[in-house]
């Protein structure tokens, strides 16, 4: 297990996410997970990154129309970003609240819409920010450091 990737070049992975493409969202998280395992990163880091990617990609698939997931690995951290064209988020504070969801009925039927995705992401990341324009789209950025202050060990 390693704490940093001094000898590894920087890696950027990109995954397009289509509207209602739930399987791709899960699949992209699995693929990044595999890459991180090959790099020999700690189990806990991999677990947190996988959850963030899954939840972020699902939110694009469910709430926005389509977008792009970008995962960037550098020697100290992993950055996860989604950019979507979608409805945007009118009230970020409300959206971050556990249990708040505007998921449509068909998504609820599939087990989405607990309003836990953003709180999960926040818990798993060292930094999380949302930049959103109502009616235009949303950019979500999350960062996980290999040596974390908030998640020691």
């Amino acid at each position: 297990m390693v704490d940093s990737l001094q000898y590894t070049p920087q890696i950027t992975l990109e995954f397009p996410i289509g509207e209602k493409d739930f399987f791709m969202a899960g699949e992209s998280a699995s693929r990044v997970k595999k890459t991180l395992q090959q790099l020999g990163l700690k189990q806990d880091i991999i677990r947190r990154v996988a959850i963030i990617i899954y939840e972020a990609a699902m939110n694009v698939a469910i709430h926005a129309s389509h977008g792009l997931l970008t995962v960037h690995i550098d020697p100290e951290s992993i950055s996860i970003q989604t950019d979507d064209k979608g409805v945007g988020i009118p009230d970020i504070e409300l959206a971050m609240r556990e249990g708040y969801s505007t998921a449509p009925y068909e998504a609820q039927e599939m087990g989405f819409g607990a309003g836990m995705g953003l709180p999960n992401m926040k818990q798993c990341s060292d930094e999380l920010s949302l930049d959103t324009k109502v009616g235009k789209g949303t950019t979500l950025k999350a960062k996980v450091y290999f040596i974390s202050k908030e998640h020691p060990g």
Partner: protein
Amino acid sequence: MTIAQLVNALGLEVLTGDINMNREIKAGYTSDLLSDAIANIEEDSVWITIQRHINILGVAKLKDAAAIIIPRNLQLEENVIEKAREEDIAILRCPQSAFEISGLLYNILTRG
């Protein structure tokens, strides 16, 4: 205990055929909310859920779940079963409710 042993002990129906049957099971989790499952399923778990959309396979794979149990003999679409085979995730089924099968699984896993 392995999936095969669990199948025998609880009389489960195996929908995915002879895949992954020797994999060890260490824990279980019951939930139909995917964000809850994603946050809480442990590695090598059996996940009990009534969700049958193809996306449960993404969750199971991401969390390294050993198998999925579908309660109440609920129907699954053939493409989900096929995909599960491809992804090496065993799907098991039982007539009991999620509550009952969770209790049975709990007893078996904690008593050994």
